[in-house]
């Protein structure tokens, strides 16, 4: 029996909990009996009947979550996040350069990470992962940060910039206290796939609770036209024992198993893959029945490897490019099998 001492571990979390009582309300969710095993045919879920269901290749369906996460309750939907790139707003500044601006607001928010399972997250702009910020190499970037959370936070961007813009406590604006705000401003360099995250201490907590997102700097020489996807691999320590109970790409366990990502046959698919996982040292990505070109950190236009499995440590990321030559459903998941069966598993649905 686990005596849930977790509440003590969040320390000042009592204040956070008190500030979000409204979100504690039980979400109206589907009957738990609508197990994945039964949902295998997909037809039981009228609202989601657009897919045939992932269960076809799921065998007896003995592995999987029971029920579904309602995206309207979370306020974000992994099915949309996967193709959602936030390019902010732009305007010309002196010297003919482009200034690109975003506003990010930190908040305390309870989210549903697996059907029926709540997690008291900290979020940028209401979602986990945070918006995928996308800029062009050489632009001037300006990010206004407002801390609407009950804890101090920062935004630390991976990239090349001056110390004052690094978003760490004690340097530059340092920690932004609740209610405070600041502006981070720097040049977009180098091109590639990066990430941003909160750098307040305790660091693992501030990241694991959801304050992270992908940060793409496109090269001046454009990459080839492709169907672009962003996948932030993450996990959730729901009982605060310093290990994750739930794993996923883009937060919701098995989201793309229940609703496969539809792609076109023979069309180039580009995946921006970021590992934001805490507590576990490595994560991985494996695609079935196919191989992909891998561009580590996306800092080169030449792939380093043609493979079907790639491992990423904490904070590592890379770009994958592949085409599906055959129609059908193809699994992708962490080849760390434990993560796969705890939620980090999905399907591509290749159509003509």
């Amino acid at each position, binding site marked *: *029996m*686990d*005596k*849930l001492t*977790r*509440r003590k571990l969040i320390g000042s979390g*009592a204040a956070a*909990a008190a500030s979000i009582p409204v979100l504690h309300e*039980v979400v109206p969710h589907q009957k*738990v*009996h609508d*197990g*994945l*095993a*039964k949902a295998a045919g997909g037809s039981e879920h009228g609202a989601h009947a657009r897919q045939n269901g992932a269960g076809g290749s799921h065998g*007896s*369906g*003995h*592995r*999987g*979550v*029971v*029920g579904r996460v309602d995206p309207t309750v979370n306020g974000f939907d992994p099915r949309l996040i996967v193709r959602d790139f936030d390019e902010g707003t732009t305007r010309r500044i002196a010297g003919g350069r482009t200034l690109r601006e975003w506003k990010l607001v930190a908040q305390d928010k309870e989210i549903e*990470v*697996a*059907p*029926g*399972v*709540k*997690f*008291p997250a900290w979020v940028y702009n209401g979602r986990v992962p945070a918006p995928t910020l996308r800029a062009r190499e050489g632009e001037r970037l300006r990010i206004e940060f407002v801390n609407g959370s009950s804890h101090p936070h920062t935004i630390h961007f991976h990239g090349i910039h001056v110390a004052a813009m690094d978003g760490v406590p004690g340097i530059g604006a340092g920690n932004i206290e609740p209610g405070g705000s600041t502006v981070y401003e720097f040049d977009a360099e180098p091109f590639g796939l990066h990430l941003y995250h909160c750098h307040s201490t305790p660091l693992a907590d501030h990241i694991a609770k959801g304050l992270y997102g992908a940060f793409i700097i496109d090269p001046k020489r454009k990459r080839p036209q492709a169907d672009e996807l962003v996948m932030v691999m993450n996990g*959730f320590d*729901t*009982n605060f*024992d310093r290990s994750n*109970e*739930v794993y996923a790409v883009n937060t919701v*366990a*098995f989201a793309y198993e229940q609703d496969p990502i539809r792609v076109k046959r023979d069309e180039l698919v580009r995946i921006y893959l970021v590992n934001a996982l805490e507590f576990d040292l490595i994560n991985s990505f494996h695609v079935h029945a196919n191989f992909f070109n891998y561009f580590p950190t996306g800092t080169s236009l030449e792939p380093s490897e043609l493979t079907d499995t790639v491992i990423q440590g904490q904070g590592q990321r890379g770009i994958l490019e592949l085409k599906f030559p055959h129609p059908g459903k193809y699994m992708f998941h962490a080849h760390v099998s*434990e993560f796969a*069966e*705890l*939620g980090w598993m999905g399907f591509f649905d290749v159509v003509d």
Partner: protein
Amino acid sequence: MESATAPAKRTRPPWLLGLLPLVLLGAAIALFVALDAPGLERSGVPAEELVVDRTVLRPGEIELHVSNDGPDPVEVRQVIVNDGFVAFEQSDEQVGRLDGDKLTLTFPWIEGENYEVALLTATGGTISHSIEAAAESPEADAGFYGLMGLIGLYVGIIPVAIGMLWLPWVRRIDPRWVQFLLALTIGLLAFLGIDALLEGGELTRDGPEALGGAALVWLGAVAAYLALTGVDGLMARRSERERSGGASGFRLALLVAIGIGLHNLGEGLVIGSAYAIGSLALGATLVIGFALHNTTEGLAIVAPVAEEKPRLRRLALFGLIAGAPAILGAWIGASAFDVSLAAFMFGLGAGAIVRVIIQIAPSIRDSAGRYLHPLAVGGLLTGLTLMYATGLLVSV
């Protein structure tokens, strides 16, 4: 009370005065509830305490019987078995306080392997439960109950009956040696009493706390002690009326039989439940061990009647009282094992035994009125040693 005021007060019936505090208490509670417990809003997050009482394994399926041991309702939302989510069904989405629920997991478990189950609740908390050396749970059909009955027979009735066959021998030996045997009986019982207390305590360690936990063992002990004292008092009054004493040996034997019977009830429970969860190797060693162990219990019953002329039917009845509860216990344990119930029953056994020991104690006094004379001490130690040694053969 002053005589002048007394008649005036007598007009009010006494029961009304006795009821007054209760009525006031009821009114206070009603007011408190009506005002919705002012100032006592629950702060913080719910405390989720779920206990897995029983695990049933069927091919491709794990059934968990859980009960809510904490103050708040618990909602199990997902189930993890060995680092993987599994499909499951539950009868209720929410398990209320002191309420129970059945979770049926679809999982292809492998015989002999260990499994770690985590119940993931709505708040993200986990309740973990280990399944060691998975084995299919026996179906509770007629054959199963027959088998349990047979185990009870072997463990309870037969050894006790065999032990009682020492009676003719006991009756022929020197009365001083009868004292030795009575002391030995006390030794045996002391061992059983301590064993029952420890066993009950051990059970409650993983059991629900809400129903009392370890306190149940002691509650059972006190209840059995008091009940047996009452029964003894009744029997004493009756036998006095019938033939002015003389039947104390039988009374003693009956009490010993009841005490041992209550102990065997608990023993049967543990055997039955161990068998039901597949953790009991029903080997010959176990049966032989129990036979040896419990044969000494038969001796304990007949020792007090060494100087009487016992009727066979009465002796048979004593044997049944002492041995048959093992069968009952095995049935209950195998079909509806409940930690709290078992702990309470072990407490009953222990309390009964203490009462019986106190009852027998005067019989071992020597002519000088000493309790712990060399022969008695020898008997006590022999009894303890005997139980300890035969107990080594039995480990459920």
